[in-house]
């Protein structure tokens, strides 16, 4: 019965994705950014759904099972403030530049902003490598969910394969429009399911207050920050949400907006949407310690599914499992489309066709790369054993540390390509260093101080950008003029 409900849900997802194909205009711009035609509501839902992944549903509940309420403060509430702020100060500006100059990827922008093919190539490699762990957590989440709800009848490798197959169909066929529509549907499903799961499970445990009193008696450490989190950890974790400023898949979604004002709804309601999704995840993870004590490490990633299975009837369990799967697919589709877009536009079109590539070829290569990326991710997921939360954090650390690059590009005329090179290289070196320092440690902070590696990476990256820009030759005036038109040259309506 559970599988039948999940299958029905997947059929609906495919139906929406395939229906969106009716509006397909057979151009590269339509395939990759839906001809910049997405309105407020779909933009909000697709941005939010893309940002919230298996990380926020399975990872948050798994981590709060071990660490307690502090997980919400570490990532949810800081994201509630910083993510919409990034959309306001970075997203809207990049949307305007993307529309004006016809960009389809962020590499195109950075390459022209600093007039450097080399920088574009370096960023291409770094952004794609950082996306790998992010893709993995989605696939692992899909596999875990299907295995758990079928009590092991579907092994994780088959679950992951099923998720890949579904995503491939609607992304290849529907492109960005199909992805945005499916994301909207999936976001509604997982937001409703989040609340529903919380209500059903807590009622079944004798009511929310009773369940939490039992948690307070059995595991008092989980309802305080206590020793599970250090004050410096809370402070430095707040840099992680800045990663949204450099996510290639969010950049692509920004470009889909019909107008700048389409961002307004997203910016206002984002903090509330984050609370709606994360509060149930965190609380159910904590309450899970009552029913399933003693889970070690990554085994806690499945706590939410275990709770649903234990407390909900089969139909409801199927609906709730569909909600979890929707959060998983929501990001995976946009990420694979973003990588496909970068391979097509920044490598094949730029180097192979010298930017003169027919629309049909752009669509063909886009689809080909999406498929290859999904298959490669699937193979990698078979060998990955890290916790979903930790994998996500390492990916976000790299993206957040690159945030000074986009800020300098948008707001600092004097920044140079050498500053950008130095900034990116410092991130690569320090990321590798701290990744191996941390090893398999689940709670690594620098020297045990509570300082997250992202703080060091971020500060060094910003300093490199400033210092190397100041000691190198100022950018050519024509480049500056292109991206920072002088007041006298601005359109009259602006003045």
């Amino acid at each position, binding site marked *: 019965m559970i599988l039948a409900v999940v299958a029905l849900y997947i059929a609906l997802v495919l139906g929406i994705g395939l229906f969106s194909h009716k509006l397909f205009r057979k151009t590269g711009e339509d395939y990759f950014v839906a001809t910049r035609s997405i309105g407020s509501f779909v933009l909000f839902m697709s941005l939010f759904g893309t940002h919230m992944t298996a990380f926020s549903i399975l990872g948050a509940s798994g981590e709060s099972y071990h660490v307690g309420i502090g997980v919400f*403060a570490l990532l*949810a509430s800081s994201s509630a403030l910083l993510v919409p702020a990034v959309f306001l100060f970075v997203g809207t500006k990049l949307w*305007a530049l993307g529309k004006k100059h016809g960009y389809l990827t962020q590499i195109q922008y950075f390459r022209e902003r600093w007039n450097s093919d080399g920088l574009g190539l370096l960023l291409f490699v770094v952004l794609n490598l950082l996306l790998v762990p992010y893709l993995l957590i989605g696939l692992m989440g899909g596999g875990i969910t299907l295995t758990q709800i079928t009590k092991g009848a579907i092994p994780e490798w088959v679950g992951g394969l099923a998720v890949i197959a579904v995503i491939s169909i609607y992304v290849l066929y529907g492109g960005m429009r199909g992805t945005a529509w499916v994301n909207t549907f999936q976001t509604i499903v997982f937001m409703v399911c989040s609340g529903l799961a919380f209500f059903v499970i807590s009622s079944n445990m004798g009511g929310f207050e009773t369940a939490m*009193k039992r948690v307070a008696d059995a595991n008092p450490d989980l*309802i305080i*920050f206590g020793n599970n989190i250090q*004050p410096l950890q809370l402070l430095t974790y707040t840099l992680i949400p800045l990663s949204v400023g450099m996510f290639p898949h969010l950049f692509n979604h920004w470009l889909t907006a019909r107008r700048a004002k389409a961002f*307004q709804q997203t910016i206002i309601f984002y903090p509330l949407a984050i609370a709606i999704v994360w509060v149930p995840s965190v609380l159910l993870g904590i309450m899970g310690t009552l029913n399933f004590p003693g889970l070690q490490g990554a085994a806690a990633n499945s706590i939410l599914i275990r709770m649903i299975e234990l407390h909900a009837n089969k139909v409801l369990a199927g609906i709730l499992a569909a909600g979890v799967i929707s959060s998983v697919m929501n990001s995976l589709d946009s990420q694979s489309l973003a990588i496909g877009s970068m391979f097509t536009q920044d490598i094949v079109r730029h180097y192979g066709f010298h930017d003169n590539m027919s629309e049909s070829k752009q669509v063909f290569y886009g689809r080909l790369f999406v498929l290859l990326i999904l298959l490669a991710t699937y193979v990698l997921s078979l060998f990955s054993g890290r916790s979903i939360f930790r994998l996500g954090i390492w990916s976000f650390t790299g993206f957040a540390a690159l945030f000074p690059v986009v800020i300098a590009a948008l707001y600092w005329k004097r920044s140079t390509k050498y500053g950008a090179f130095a900034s990116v290289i410092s991130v690569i070196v320090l990321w590798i260093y701290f990744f191996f320092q941390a090893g398999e440690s689940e709670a690594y902070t620098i020297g045990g101080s509570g300082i997250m590696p992202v703080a060091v990476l971020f500060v060094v990256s910003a300093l490199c950008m400033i210092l190397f820009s100041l000691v190198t030759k100022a950018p050519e005036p024509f480049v500056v003029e292109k991206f920072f038109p002088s007041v006298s040259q601005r*359109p009259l309506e*602006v003045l």
Partner: protein
Amino acid sequence: MRYILYLALFGLYLLHNDVWLWEDACLIYGFPSGLLYHIAYCVVASVLMLLLVKFAWPSHLEVEADPSK
């Protein structure tokens, strides 16, 4: 107004570090006080975003984005 809101944004960022509730094990309607604080924080962040959109919106972008200009 714009700069007051930017200041409020920074102030709210600092208020995220609620060290004063670190060891508070009090439950309010079942919600741990530390968690309730951060839920309220999300609501306040949403209100601040509403004010930023209303009073600090970059309205010039709409025109600047036009490829023909």
